[in-house]
């Protein structure tokens, strides 16, 4: 398959096409919790969903948090404006997620997301809804967001393609921030070519986001693949044996594979979480209980009491991260934790950039198959964070990466992740395009098939 967008645009749609899509999607959504809001499209475009932490004018945007319920943005995020201006897409709704992006399994929210391939299992997170929507709809693209793996993880668990660009390539204006130096808006789709189309539409400098850039994006094709041994230490044996078969297949397609050791890569998890929590704890301070969404009623209370009361609306993981982030930023430990993490980030960028000069880094996307919701619920925070080992290094270092299925274990997909050098975004997309010529993705649902 080259492009579902082009195929959709070339087809004659039945008159009641969107009525049927809306009806079928609403029915499935009541079980899977992919969407927080579903809208029946008015235009005749390709169905498009947008993660609930990206603002769409006039549509409730909550980042799946109770503290933002009722918040109606009076503006579009730049990424939304750029897509709407093409008049090629029809907005279908806002997708579910872990509250503010705090989670890897899509269960830190009021309506836990369910994997369409096995409804007892998690869909991955935090862009859980975006991945489920992509797995459900034949013609559709999802705008998602990743801070530490929030695109790759759900894309892998739901068997779709998930692309996270180099930090700064897609404007963050209108994104409800989690961690400013790590957040990246990206795309999920059923083909790499559709991801390329969306990157062309959304990339580029935005005067409203001073961290956005116009740096030229390259399309370097490397035939050398690097495997970092320390990343594979935590991977489930069943996944490893399949991944090794995949590597053999790639060798057969002309790729060379080199194993290297990079001990410091293990520090990327604590360094990432320390930076993310420090930034999150300041970002969440803007939800004061009188400006966005939820309103505390008693204005006679002193400010600090009013503020504290409003913050009771946060979920447990958000509270945990605010407390930790506040601690990490305190003067007595700032150098020990926060500054040290920034140094580690710099060091890892240097080391990974050297490796990526003439190669891609390859690994499984997730170290485990999607766990059952009950299993994920009982995992400790440290176990949760450790599950991100394969997606965090690229996210911490702002490197473009793409996740795509390479095999199946029963009904569940096994996905791999390709990481490229900064601004070689088209390069990683091209890798997935090449792979698709040799492999047919399987989808259980094809809502909207014509």
């Amino acid at each position, binding site marked *: 398959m080259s492009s579902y967008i082009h195929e959709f645009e070339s087809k004659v749609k039945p008159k009641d096409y969107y009525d049927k899509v809306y009806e079928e999607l609403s029915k499935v959504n009541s079980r899977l919790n992919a969407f927080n809001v579903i809208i029946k499209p008015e235009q005749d475009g390709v169905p498009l969903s947008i993660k609930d932490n990206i603002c769409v004018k006039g549509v409730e945007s909550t980042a799946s948090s109770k503290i933002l319920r009722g918040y*109606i943005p*009076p503006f579009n995020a730049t990424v939304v404006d750029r897509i709407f201006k093409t008049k090629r897409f029809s907005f279908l709704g806002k997708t579910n997620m872990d509250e503010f992006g705090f989670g890897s399994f899509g269960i830190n929210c009021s309506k836990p997301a369910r994997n369409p391939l096995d409804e007892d299992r998690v869909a991955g997170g935090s862009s859980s809804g975006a991945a489920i929507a992509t797995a459900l709809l034949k013609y559709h693209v999802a705008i998602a967001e990743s801070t530490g793996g929030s695109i790759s993880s759900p894309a892998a668990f739901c068997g779709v393609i998930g692309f996270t660009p*180099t*930090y*700064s390539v897609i404007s963050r204006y209108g994104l409800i921030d989690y961690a400013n*130096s*790590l957040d990246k808006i990206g795309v999920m789709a059923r083909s790499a070519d559709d991801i390329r189309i969306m990157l062309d539409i959304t990339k580029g400098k935005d005067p409203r986001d*001073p*961290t956005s*850039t116009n*740096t030229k994006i390259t399309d370097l094709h490397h035939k050398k693949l690097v495997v970092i041994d320390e990343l594979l230490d935590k991977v489930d044996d069943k996944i490893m044996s399949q991944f090794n078969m995949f590597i053999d297949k790639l060798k057969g397609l002309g790729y060379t594979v080199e194993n290297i050791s990079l001990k*410091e890569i*293990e*520090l990327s998890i*604590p360094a990432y*979480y*320390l930076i993310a929590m420090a930034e999150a*704890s300041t970002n969440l301070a803007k939800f*004061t209980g*009188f*400006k966005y969404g939820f*309103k505390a009623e008693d*204005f*006679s*209370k*002193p*400010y600090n009491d*009013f*503020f*504290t*009361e409003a*913050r009771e609306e*946060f979920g447990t993981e958000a*509270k*945990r991260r*605010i*407390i*930790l982030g*506040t*601690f990490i930023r305190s003067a007595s430990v700032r150098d*020990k*934790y926060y*500054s*040290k*993490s*920034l*140094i*580690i*980030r*710099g060091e890892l*960028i*240097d080391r990974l950039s050297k490796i990526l000069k003439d190669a891609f880094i390859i690994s499984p996307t997730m170290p485990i198959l999607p766990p059952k919701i009950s299993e994920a619920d009982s995992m*400790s*925070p*440290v176990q949760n*964070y450790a599950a991100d080992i394969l997606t965090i290094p690229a996210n911490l*270092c*702002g490197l473009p990466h793409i996740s795509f299925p390479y095999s199946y274990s029963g009904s569940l997909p096994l996905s791999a992740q390709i990481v490229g050098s*900064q*601004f070689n975004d088209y390069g990683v997309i091209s890798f997935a395009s090449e792979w698709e010529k040799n492999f047919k993705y399987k989808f259980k649902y094809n809502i909207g098939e014509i």
Partner: protein
Amino acid sequence: MEGEEFDRLLKISRIKLDEKEKQSIKRDIENILEYFDSVNKFDESKNKLAFHSVEINGEPRKDEVEKFEDRDELLSNTKTYRGFVVGPKI
């Protein structure tokens, strides 16, 4: 982390927890900090602090006044009184 230290942290974080939540989050935070302590094994870098992963020009846009087309819509997410946002006492 001592009980008093944790209470002070909750106060400056402006987070209120019931006793059960407090015990469980305190235990989580101790475990997480123990895990985070591993960053201190690393001290051989001459790198500067990497506040961003890519080189950012960081130049802010020009500070120009722009008229927002729909003032009422802008204020629709707040409680207002005579065009002002109503908030708590400072």
